[in-house]
């Protein structure tokens, strides 16, 4: 029996971008407001899970050809890498640096290496979440 789910597919095609936008907002808001890498990663992961629910594994893999176990591994590598890099500057493990820089067009901005660590956390959360949900909800 062919299932008719035109409404679901059309709605999700728009909603998934709202979810991803909220995820990225939460990721960057985490610097000095509620949010951060973990919450942003959870929201981004639930957006990807929504895509998998609406379409199927083959279709999503055609547009997003990531192995999510490797995404999680890359996230851990990024987070520990930003932590270990502090050892080369003779400061304790996990020390983060920040500063104010004048960027072209944007003006003076506050940049810090915590963002790299948070990106690692977010990638780890996305990879782990999608891997777990795909493994427990697969048919057969």
């Amino acid at each position: 029996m062919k299932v008719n789910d035109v409404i679901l597919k059309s709605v999700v095609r728009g909603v998934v971008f709202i979810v991803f936008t909220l995820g990225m907002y939460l990721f960057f808001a985490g610097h000095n407001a509620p949010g951060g890498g973990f919450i942003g990663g959870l929201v981004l992961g639930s957006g990807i899970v929504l895509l998998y629910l609406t379409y199927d594994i083959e279709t999503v893999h055609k547009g997003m050809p990531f192995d999510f176990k490797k995404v999680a591994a890359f996230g851990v590598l990024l987070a520990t890498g930003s932590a270990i890099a502090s050892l080369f500057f003779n400061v304790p493990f996990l020390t983060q640096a920040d500063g104010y820089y004048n960027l072209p067009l944007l003006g003076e901005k506050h940049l810090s290496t915590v963002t790299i660590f948070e990106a690692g956390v977010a990638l780890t959360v996305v990879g782990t979440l999608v891997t777990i949900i795909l493994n427990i909800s697969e048919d057969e």
Partner: protein
Amino acid sequence: MIDLILKAALVLFMLAIALSLYRVIKGPSLPDRAIALDTIGVNLISAIAIVSIVLNTKAFLEAILILGILAFIGTIAFSKYIERGVIVERKSAD
């Protein structure tokens, strides 16, 4: 006066969530449970909005957005399980 109205609304939302919870536990069929869970989600969103009016803060707005997204995804997953028996398909049906 407005404070009394807001508190009364919170109590009524609590009552509505309790009634929906009864339907989730007792519900004779699976679609009853799916609709009751979605109702609980909507009631929670409204209750959080009223709590943020009572406390006069904007800190709960992200919680409202995330709860809306999660209720949406949960309802879709539940109804897809009821309709087809699988949640994530390996390849498209047609």
